[in-house]
Structure formats: C-alpha cells, structure tokens
C-alpha cells in the first residue's frame, strides 16, 4: 500500500516535471518568436556586404553613416510621428469624455453607442482604408478640394482607429475606480465640472496614459488603412520601409529600422520613469 502510493507520487512528480518542461519550452519559443526578428535586424544592419548573406564577409557601421543620404526615411519618420501624435491627442480629447459618459451617466442608447464607438476595432483596416478613399474621391469631385494625400486626412483617418482604443482602455479603467470619491466631492459642494477636472480625471491618469500609448502604437504602425490614403509627398514610415523592401533587401534598411527602434525604446523608457508601464497595461 505504502509502496503503491509512493510510486503514484513519483509518477505524479514525473507528470509535473514534464508539464513544467512543456511550459518552459513554450515560453522559450514565444520569447524567441518575438525577439529573433528584432535581433536579426540589428545583426544584419552591421553586415559589410551590400547583399544579405549569412555568414557575412565582415562587419561595418558604415550603413548608419549612409542614412543621411536617404532623407526619404527621415521625412517618413517625421510624418509618422506627427500623425501619430496628433491622432493620439485628438482621440484623447474626444475619447476620454466619451468613456466618462458611457460609464458614469445613464442615457438612452448607451449600449448601442458603446458598440458603435468600439466598432472600428472589428472592421479590417483595408476595408476602412478603401471606404475612406472612395468617400474622399466623392467629396473631392463635389467640392473640388484637394484632399487625398494631405496630412489632415491622414490624421482624421488615424483618429478613427485610435479612438476605440482610448474608449476601450478608459472605460475599463473607469469601471475599476471608486465612484464614492466623486460623490463625496459632489456632496461637499463641488460643481460637476470641478468634480470632473479635480477628481475624475486625476484618478484616471493610469488609464489615460495606457490609452495614449496604445493610440500612438496603432497609429504609428498602421499599414493596412494608411496604404489607401498616402500620396508620393506624404508617406508614413512603415510604408516607406515596405516600399523599399519590395525592391531591395540590404543592411541599409535594417539600419534604418534599428535607429527607429532605438528612438521608440528611449521614448518608452522615458514614459516608464513617469508612469510604470507594467502597472498601466
């Protein structure tokens, strides 16, 4: 009897060990999948040869020096940062109030509006892009205004895909917040505007930072929708890399990407000092 339970325990231990091994292996694969492409890109950016072949004949940093000769990438990065920043700001301006209304107020059609505001998340980007382009052309024909390819159109289009993220994250954040603090402020005589400004908004800080971060991400790396709205003059960074890769695959484009990654990583670290990202997301 004792022997039987002993071997059962050993068997159970064996099962636990193999389960642990499987879980460990899954984690290694997951981490490899996320990091390998980035490490590989960084590695390729120092290859000496103009064509990517492994192993390289030597290593050089000269590709980074050549970046200045390709102002197109810099311009595209500028456009991307500008559009993403503007879309993030505007989507906070309209998304935060909307989420406060959705969580804190009761009005007819609230459920429907909630679905409507989140709906851009479920529509494929290529569909939104094509639809917007078609609409722009119709408006252009009627008004004779040059709209396609302008920064304003790009920002407005990105506003559509950033706003649902702001609403989603702020709603989730507001639901967790204690409503009684706002009620206390109101009972102590603070007018609604004051309650909103000095109580609700400061309490939402983490949610707003997370929302801003995600809004920026989805705008910055969007390809599917933006593809339909660019013009030769205004191109976003991911699309300029995509167009380059269509014809050439060399260490130069890898070094472009490494510079971009470094810029973004520094930005994230700076934000992390201010608000702990691991608590926010």
């Amino acid at each position, binding site marked *: 009897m004792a022997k039987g339970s002993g071997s059962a325990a050993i068997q159970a231990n064996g099962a636990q060990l193999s389960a642990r091994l499987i*879980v460990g292996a*899954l984690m290694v694969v997951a981490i490899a999948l996320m990091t*390998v492409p980035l490490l590989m890109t960084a590695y390729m950016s120092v290859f000496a040869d103009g064509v990517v072949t492994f192993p390289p004949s030597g290593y050089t940093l000269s590709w980074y020096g050549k970046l200045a000769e390709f102002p197109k990438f810099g311009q595209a990065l500028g456009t991307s940062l500008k559009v993403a920043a503007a879309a993030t700001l505007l989507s906070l301006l309209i998304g935060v109030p909307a989420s406060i*209304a959705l969580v804190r107020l009761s009005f007819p059609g609230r459920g429907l509006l909630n679905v409507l505001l989140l709906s851009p998340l479920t529509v494929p980007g290529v569909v939104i892009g094509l639809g917007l382009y078609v609409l722009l052309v119709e408006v252009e024909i009627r008004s004779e205004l040059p709209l396609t390819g302008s920064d304003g159109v790009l920002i407005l289009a990105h506003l*559509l895909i950033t706003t649902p993220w702001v609403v989603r994250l702020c709603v989730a954040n507001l639901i967790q917040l204690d409503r009684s603090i706002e009620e206390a402020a109101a009972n102590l005589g603070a007018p609604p505007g004051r309650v909103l400004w000095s109580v609700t908004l400061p309490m939402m800080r983490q949610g707003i930072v997370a929302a801003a971060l995600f809004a920026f991400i989805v705008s910055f790396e969007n390809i599917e929708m933006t593809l339909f709205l660019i013009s030769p003059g205004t191109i976003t960074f991911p699309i300029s890399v*995509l167009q380059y890769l269509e014809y050439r695959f060399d260490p130069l484009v*890898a070094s472009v*990407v490494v510079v*971009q990654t470094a810029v*973004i990583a520094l930005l994230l670290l700076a934000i992390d000092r201010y608000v702990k990202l691991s608590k926010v997301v």
Partner: protein
Amino acid sequence: MTKRRPEGLTATLLIGPATMVVLLSLVLPLALLARYSMNRYDRRTFMVEAFTPENYLRFVTDPFYTGVLWTTFSIAIVTTLLCLILGFPVAYKLARSQSRWKSIGVLLVILPLFIGSTVRALGWMGVLGRGGIVDAIYGALGGSGISLLNSSFAVALGILSINLPYMILTLQSVIEGIDARVEEAADSLGASPPRRFWHVVLPLALPGIGTGGILVFILAMNAYATPFLLGGARFQMMAPMLYREFAVNNNWPFAAAIAFILMLTTLTLTAASSLLVQRRYRAH
C-alpha cells in the same frame, strides 16, 4: 426625473464628438462602399452605375478567390490558436511575477508592438531567405540552398510573431485580475498544478482568452505586410489581393465586394466566438 434632462445634455456633449467621428469616417464610407460593390466594372470608364450582384457572384463562384479566402481563414485560425498556446505561459509568468524584472519584461513585450510588422518581416527574411541563417546552417550540414520564404509557413511564423505581444498583454491583464488566493485555495485543497490550471485558472481567464483571440484573429485576417513580404507573389491572402484589385486593376466595384466579404467573414466569426465564450462563462 428632473435630473434626467441635464444628464442627457451632458452625455450628448461628452460623447457627441466621438460618435460623429465614427459615423462620418466609418459608417458613411461603408455605406458608400456597399453601393460601389453593386456597380459594374468597365475597362475604359472603370466604373458604371448599376445594381447587380455580379461582383459577389464572381467571388463565390471562382475557386481562385474562394481559395484565397480559405487560405486567409486557415492562417488566421492556426496563428490564433498558436498565439494562445504560446502566449499563455508568458502572460501568466508576467502577471504573477513580483520581481523588479517584471517591468522590463512588460517593456520587452510592448516594444515589438511599436516596431511594426514590416520590421518583423525584415528580420524573418534574414532568417528564412536565401543566404539567410537557416540556409547557411542547412548548407553547412551538406544540403544545398533552401529558402523557406514564399510559403505559408513563413507567413504564419511572421503573423505569429507580430500577434503574440497583443495576446500576451491581453491575457496578462486578465490573469492579474484573478485573485491569487483562489489558486492558493485550490493548491491547499490538494489540486495538482495541471488540475489547478484546467479547472481554476483557465475558466477564470476565459473572457481574456476570448478578447485576445478575437483581436489576434482580426489582425491575422487583415494582415497586409507579412503576406506581401514573406508570402511572395504566388501566396495570396485577402488584404493584399484587395489592394491589388484596387490599385493595380483599378476595379473598385470588385475591390468593394472583396472588402464586404472579408468584413462579413470576420464579423460573423468574431460574433460567433464571443457568443460561445459568453455562454461558457455564464455556465461557470
């Protein structure tokens, strides 16, 4: 009763601008697109006003197009499942970690999100392409020149590496919401770790699995850059095909029809799966 009226007004002011943006730049374009999809394509004038279902019929009757839809769908399903299986352990570890490395770990998951799909595709080109690492290792072992690019494997790998961070972040936030004491209780009542996982953690994490799964599935159905760069000319998925129909063939009515087929497929599947999750969640 007296409070109702001002509250309705405040609500309108607060939610109005966001609603206008969605109505004007999503609902209106979609309505227009629906109209376009009924028009007829003409070689010289490009588009003729009509009211015909022939664009949709062309799609569903041509095995090439239904094949592309099927490829897109299977890639999306496979990558979504793999994202779940691979993402869960990392998300769990991050959620339950107390160490100071945690915020570095979360940063490392967020960082790839900022870097975008083109860049990830670039990295995979260096690994899988001709002259890439796999090719070099294979050559050193005595094989001659292989390229794993331009295959469904390369596309699935690319999409997987792009979508994993989204899945991990969604799961992590849900797992953090699960009270650790519930697991401790299961543990002290004698449940083995696998049993604890299947009967306690997994059912409680189901809403997160649903949200994350849907998000990742939509991203995969929608993928443009990855199939374009890693799949090559012969591997077709819906988004690149739609773009080509629009930009190269100038066939806007057919592109609009493809857009609606893609959207309806995605919406039907996400609605069905969220219903499924909700039902299971209520049962528990």
